[in-house]
């Protein structure tokens, strides 16, 4: 008797939370204060998908972003401590942290440019190069790897037609390997932008891309 491969029963898949509107989760007043693209200063890439097109040359810290910057600076005793959230905000606006962005942030916070580069390169969640609309991070660390992460990674590369770490020609996908995503109980874990897809097998990849297509209403994917 052939059994279906073991799948974790309850945690993967669409739990419905993303069908809720922001207002239902956080309350109207909160939504009203949110910045232009819905980002939050403390967790700026918080939207499940990058619904707003990133502009690598967008001006930093103008208008509502200036207000958010002021709030961030108020929150920390030194400008050095504010570096991470400010870089978050810059990435939220521009999609990645370019050398020029590091320089701007350094002069804004009165920090050494080299120091800002050191911080930005230390953290893998800052993209140092432009990435696609969907940043697909496939965990290939121990648990996931034992459960077929390599095949999942290969399937993503195959479906998106891109190389590891590169962005697909249509600008939609960047597929990278990630170290542990802290979801070892549900391998293989894939993080797409800020959402986790758990228990992903190589044969699920088509469905995930279909889902992205449906949720964003973008038939080009």
């Amino acid at each position: 008797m052939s059994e279906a491969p073991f799948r974790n029963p309850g945690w993967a898949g669409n739990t419905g939370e993303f069908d809720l509107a922001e207002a239902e989760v956080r309350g109207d007043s909160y939504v009203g204060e949110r910045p232009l693209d819905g980002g939050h200063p403390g967790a700026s890439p918080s939207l499940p998908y990058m619904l707003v097109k990133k502009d690598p040359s967008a001006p930093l810290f103008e208008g509502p972003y200036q207000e958010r910057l002021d709030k961030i600076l108020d929150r920390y005793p030194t400008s050095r401590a504010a570096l991470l959230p400010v870089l978050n905000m810059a990435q939220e606006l521009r999609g990645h942290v370019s050398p020029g962005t590091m320089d701007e942030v350094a002069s804004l916070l009165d920090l050494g440019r080299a120091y800002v580069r050191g911080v930005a390169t230390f953290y893998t969640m800052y993209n140092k190069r432009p990435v696609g609309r969907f940043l697909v991070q496939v965990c290939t660390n121990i648990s996931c790897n034992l459960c077929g992460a390599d095949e999942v990674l290969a399937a993503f590369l195959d479906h998106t037609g891109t190389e590891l770490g590169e962005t697909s020609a249509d600008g939609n996908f960047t597929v990278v390997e990630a170290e542990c995503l802290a979801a070892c109980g549900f391998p293989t874990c894939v993080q797409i932008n800020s959402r986790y897809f758990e228990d992903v097998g190589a044969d699920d990849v088509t469905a995930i891309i279909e889902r992205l297509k449906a949720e964003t209403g973008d038939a080009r994917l």
Partner: protein
Amino acid sequence: MPDNGRKPETVALTIDGREVVVPKGTSLLQAAAGAGIEVPHYCYHPGLSAPAQCRVCLVEVEGAPKLQPSCVTVAQDGQVVRTDSDEALEMRKGVFEFYLVNHPLDCPICDMSGECKLQDYVFAEGREHGRAHEPKRVFGRDDFGGDVLYYGDRCVMCTRCVRFMEEVAGDPRLTVVERGSRAVIDTFFDQGLEGASFAGNVVDICPVGALVSKEFLHKARAWDLDHTPSVCAGCSQGCNVELHTRDNLVQRLKPRENQEVNGHWMCDYGRESYEWINRPGRLESPQAGRGSRRKPTDWRDVLGRLHARLQELRGAEVIVIGSPLWPNEGLAALDALAQAAGQVSRRVFRSPRAQDEDPLPGFPLLIRRRDLAPNVDGAGLLGFDRDGSDVGEGGLDGVAAHDGILLVLGDELRDQSEEFGASAALFVYLGTHDSPAAANADFVLPVTNFAEQEGTFVNAQGRVQRFQQALRPPGTARPAWLVLGALAAALAGNGPPPSRADGAFAALVAAHPAFAGLDYDVLGVAGAPLADAGAATAAAAGQRAP
């Protein structure tokens, strides 16, 4: 803190079975070093903050639940420390094994080989054989600009260079980029270290061969170099340095610690301005006769003839041109000879000056001074006046046509014509190299430069600093004080001339009150301030005024 006559507070502890008493607040690493026990360390450097991140200075402290990083653990009264317990050695052995996982072991082509701390420590404490079979990661090398080249593969990530640039140079250009095994030291993309005038120090403090000097690259092996305590001749700060020599040539300069002058550091200008010491084409034997009648001769002959000539001209007007590249002893002997020979009308020197000073923010005592010669202040104290322009030329009005005695030491008179000194009754030229302007010299005497002799300089702080002989003099060149002292003593008839540098210094102290109370032996390798250093500085300042 009020000074109530008590001794500074101390703590007594035991390190490796030895009783050690150290001032309160001393780290275990320093306390052990004081007792002659070297605990391995990378990230700790006495001139920088200690982040305790390299983990190679772990030692066992009785009562502590785990090994302690000795560079940041403060010595406590009654503490019992073991730097060589089985546990500490086993732990450090493990740490070194991790360092070697990605270290290339390219020692045969690495400039640091022989003075590399990874080499030393692994040899002393590491495993006999590595167990890492995986390929090592490779970065290649990165030209940081200036004189600094970075080999990322060899780096142990101690971040001394990063902290030096931030804390001492006040120019935080270096940082750790990336993380984990991909981490390297880098600047902000293409910025580099170009224009950072103290960046050469990062090469000195790098414990391994990650940061190396381009200028010294593959020039000599560390074990072939002789180290001589000396003083940098680049400017009047007089940073304490070691001359590293091989094949009777200076190969490089390294700073030597002196907390009163330069800390652990020196500037790139001084570090790179040593080639003049190695300049070939030296005068090797004394010569006598003007122009086409010049003939090489020997010292006995030339000194005899010069002495006779000085006797004949006794009482004539004497003009003396010195050089602040020469030590006090030579300049003092020059002055003594001039006084014995006749009426000294002028004592001058010419020396280049920079546009401005270049201080080191993190060690304010260290300033690259405007005067780009080591003994400008000594020359001032010995009665020499500055002449000429800021490039060390010009001036000397009326000297070319002087008809008395003309004594020149060290100044090559590059800007003077071949007619210089034509009308002088006696023109004596003492130098390292012949010069067109010395064509009319009656006597050309080869003397040693500062690296080929012992002596003292007075720096801009009014500190008298000794340097030792690093090189063999060429041919029969002799120290200026020996030649001039012999002539002066013979002329003045006041006893035997000094035959050693300490005697020359004693003669100088006796003749010049500014140096009163100084003793050659007491100067040691660290130097000592003039009794009235303030006055000396004021005199030098007055003398500097245009």
